[in-house]
């Protein structure tokens, strides 16, 4: 009785869980969580039990057995004695080739068609409408099969090129052959000395980028504009060509020629690949075209008129006024188009292109009968790729999205807050603040950071999935659990640190710290860093790895960082 009379007392009754609004929502969430966990447990148990009832076990041991089948298109060393995991990697690389080339082509088709659809030229605009509406409304599966059928039936067999009475001939002065098996292109052959040509090309490329930044800074200071693009292009092309001449023309072409059953030499692009990539990029391009059109039309006409009134020429209006605003509308749907293309590439199966659905989830599944394991790995792969693409595109979107004076780059807790006493108070800039402008420097240490994380990531990927399997380097599936987890974590943190660094995202510092912790964890579980780079011992790699990470983090936290614009903070005056 006295309890109810004194509401201030610590009284809790069980029915308050659903009657009292203070506890209700937490209680409902906990119940929901328990139900979800039960459901997942039930499903998992069901799978394991049904597998057991069929007499099947769950395990990845088969991945280290010889695959025993051949794959036609392989970007890495592979033969029928290689393991199933190598076959899976071959398939994964084939998927990535289609996805990357397909995304690039789709973007080109899409941007061209999207802009052309808005053309004032009636015929061009109508033609683009026909392309977009026609392609978008036919299932992509049929389009892939159509391309494959055209290549199969309409192109001549290699034997048609043979002999005196050949019925087919090569194109472009006997350099390109189109057969019903694939296309053969000339391939560059790198002779001695070609290394320096390549080095010169990249050095000039970096120089061109720096020149561009310098010219921009100069323009902002003096208002004088230089013809940047012609100078850049001219410098790179002429410079590289001069080195090419000086080194005695060390790069030649290897032309395909008919030998035996097939053409030999040159680059062989299989019809299965051609059909898949073309069909996917034309199909996805049509969707991108619509995104581009919508993006351009979303920019108010007043903007163009204002730009014209200021005396900007049409192409500058497009580049400086319309496109930057249109991109904000275009990027988000573009992300999902890229993801669609990547996932649609699994239709490769239809034309016999050996992507990851053809190797791991196709022949390996079929020959070993490990449906669950192979599908699980395949799904993990597609998930990883999709999430990576989405992450990168989201970071890019973050960069170009609408600038509002009120949208602070505030972001809850960040590691940087711990160091306020060392680094002094930092003010979070609002995007578009005038103070941000001088921070856009030209030569950033950031470039070095990007290179460090990119190289680490590539080395790790190479060691984990590509390197030859030996006594000292067993297949990933034979590694102890701690090492497997450490590897996945390292890949994850390296990738996300790299991406945030690349796109100057303020979260960079937090990921860099997390990446350091993961690296230390990997050292603790005895990850074999000694095998990562040939000729460099483990302790050296560990020391360099930790030192470099510490340096990066230290510089980001306390450095003057005139160029670390991504941080969006300035010291308070």
């Amino acid at each position: 009785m006295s309890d109810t009379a004194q509401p201030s007392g610590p009284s809790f009754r069980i029915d308050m869980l659903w009657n009292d609004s203070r506890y209700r929502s937490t209680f409902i969430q906990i119940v929901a969580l328990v139900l979800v966990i039960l459901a997942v447990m039930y499903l998992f148990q069901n799978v394991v039990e049904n597998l057991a009832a069929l007499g099947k076990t769950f395990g990845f041991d088969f991945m280290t057995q010889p695959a025993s089948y051949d794959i036609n298109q392989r970007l890495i060393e592979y033969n029928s004695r290689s393991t199933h995991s190598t076959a899976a990697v071959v398939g994964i690389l084939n998927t990535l080739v289609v996805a990357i080339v397909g995304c690039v082509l789709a973007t080109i088709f899409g941007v061209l068609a999207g802009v052309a659809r808005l053309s004032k030229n009636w015929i061009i605009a109508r033609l683009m409408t026909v392309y977009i509406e026609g392609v978008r409304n036919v299932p992509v599966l049929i389009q892939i099969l159509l391309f494959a059928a055209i290549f199969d039936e309409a192109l001549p067999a290699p034997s048609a090129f043979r002999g005196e009475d050949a019925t087919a001939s090569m194109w472009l002065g006997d350099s390109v052959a189109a057969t019903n098996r694939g296309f053969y292109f000339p391939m560059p052959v790198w002779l001695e000395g070609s290394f320096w040509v390549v080095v010169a090309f990249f050095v000039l490329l970096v120089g061109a980028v720096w020149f561009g930044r310098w010219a921009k800074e100069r323009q902002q200071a003096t208002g004088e504009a230089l013809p940047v693009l012609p100078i850049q292009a001219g410098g790179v092309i002429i410079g590289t060509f001069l080195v090419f001449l000086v080194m005695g023309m060390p790069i030649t072409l290897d032309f395909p020629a008919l030998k035996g059953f097939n053409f030999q030499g040159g680059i062989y692009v299989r019809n299965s690949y051609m059909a898949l990539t073309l069909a996917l990029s034309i199909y996805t391009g049509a969707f991108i075209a619509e995104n581009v059109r919508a993006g351009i039309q979303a920019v108010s006409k007043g903007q163009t008129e204002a730009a014209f009134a200021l005396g900007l020429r049409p192409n500058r209006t497009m580049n400086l006024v319309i496109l930057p605003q249109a991109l904000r509308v275009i990027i988000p749907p573009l992300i999902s188009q890229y993801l669609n293309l990547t996932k649609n590439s699994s239709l490769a199966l239809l034309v016999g292109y050996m992507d990851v659905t053809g190797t791991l989830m196709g022949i390996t599944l079929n020959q070993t009968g490990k449906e669950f394991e192979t599908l699980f790995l395949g799904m993990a792969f597609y998930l990883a790729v999709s999430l990576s693409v989405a992450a990168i595109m989201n970071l890019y979107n973050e960069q170009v999205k609408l600038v509002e004076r009120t949208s602070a780059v505030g972001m809850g807790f960040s590691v940087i807050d711990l160091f306020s006493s060392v680094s002094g108070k930092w003010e979070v800039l609002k995007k578009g603040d005038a103070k941000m402008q001088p921070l856009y420097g030209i030569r950033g240490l950031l470039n070095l950071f990007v290179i460090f994380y990119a190289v680490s990531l590539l080395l790790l990927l190479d060691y984990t999935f590509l390197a030859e399997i030996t006594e000292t380097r067993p297949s990933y599936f034979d590694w102890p659990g701690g090492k497997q987890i450490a590897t996945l974590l390292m890949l994850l943190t390296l990738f996300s640190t790299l991406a945030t660094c690349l796109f100057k995202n303020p979260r960079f510092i937090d990921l860099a710290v997390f990446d350091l912790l993961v690296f230390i964890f990997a050292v603790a579980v005895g990850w074999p860093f000694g095998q990562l780079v040939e000729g460099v011992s483990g302790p050296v790699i560990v020391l360099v790895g930790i030192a470099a990470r510490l340096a990066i983090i230290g510089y980001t936290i306390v450095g003057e960082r005139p160029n670390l614009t991504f941080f969006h903070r300035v010291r308070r005056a």
Partner: protein
Amino acid sequence: MKTSVFLGALAAASLTAGLAGAATLDDVKAKGFVQCGVATGVPGFAFTDASGEWDGFDATMCRAVAAAIFGDPKAIKFTPTTGKTRFTALASGEVDLLFRNTTWTLSRDTDLKLDFVGVNYYDGQGFMVPKALGVSSAKELDGATVCIQTGTTTELNLADFFRANNISYEPVPIETNAEATQKYLAGACDVYTTDASGLAATRSTFEAPADHVILPEIISKEPLGPAVRHGDSEWADVVRWTLNALIAAEELGVNSGNVEQLGSAATDNPELNRLLGTEGEYGAMLGLPKDWAVNVIKSTGNYGEIFDRTIGPDTQIGLARGLNALWTQGGILYTPPFR
């Protein structure tokens, strides 16, 4: 407490669900027809004829199983399966048995959880090339483009053969026989390789079969036979002894013409009587009617009759009996005794 009871009940339910499919013979009897997995289309072995009925060497043997159970070869539904889908179709219960040019191998028998119950055709893998290529041996195929069906033993043998002979090739993976034929005829591959019987069958449909040769090399053993799910011995017995009955009938001289007369009353050949159910309770031991074998042979004929009608020397396909002759006639076809 409550949750663990709940989970226990769920576990028990899923376990019984897993085992419920085990008694295939009862299931088949209950639903009134046999569900048989065949190829998507291999002339002579499994194809749909002009009236849309499935026919062919494998399809007829499926009908024999239906005849054994129901006395009616039409109590059957066919499911076309590709090299890749066939085992999943069987494991998932979509079909009750496979008669689909399927090679009996150790890993399929164990790891894939199938049970092979016999061999209905002893085969081996061969190569077919256009005569115009001027190739006379498979060892001359260095650099050739080869069409293969994926999910088969063919692709594994092929890899081994080219590896052992240290020559290179370009595999073109394909799903079905029809697709492979189309690619081969279009010249998108130089060579088509599969079981030699399949090659002969495929060639018979070409406009100019004489323009194509099957190379002399046979690079593997391909005992093709019916398969059922692992762990259902009663059902395996029914399929096994239906096949054995077809072979035994040929051995004992029983055919579709004389079976009714021979089965009407006991003869003085006890083995024949046991086969045809005029002596003993052999049908009941299998869970089948007494006259099951009579029904089988009445509706499909014996092994030799089926062979001759679908793929034999007088058909377009023109396969010789070869290894598939009875053991008494120089082949290796041999059935355990009906006793």
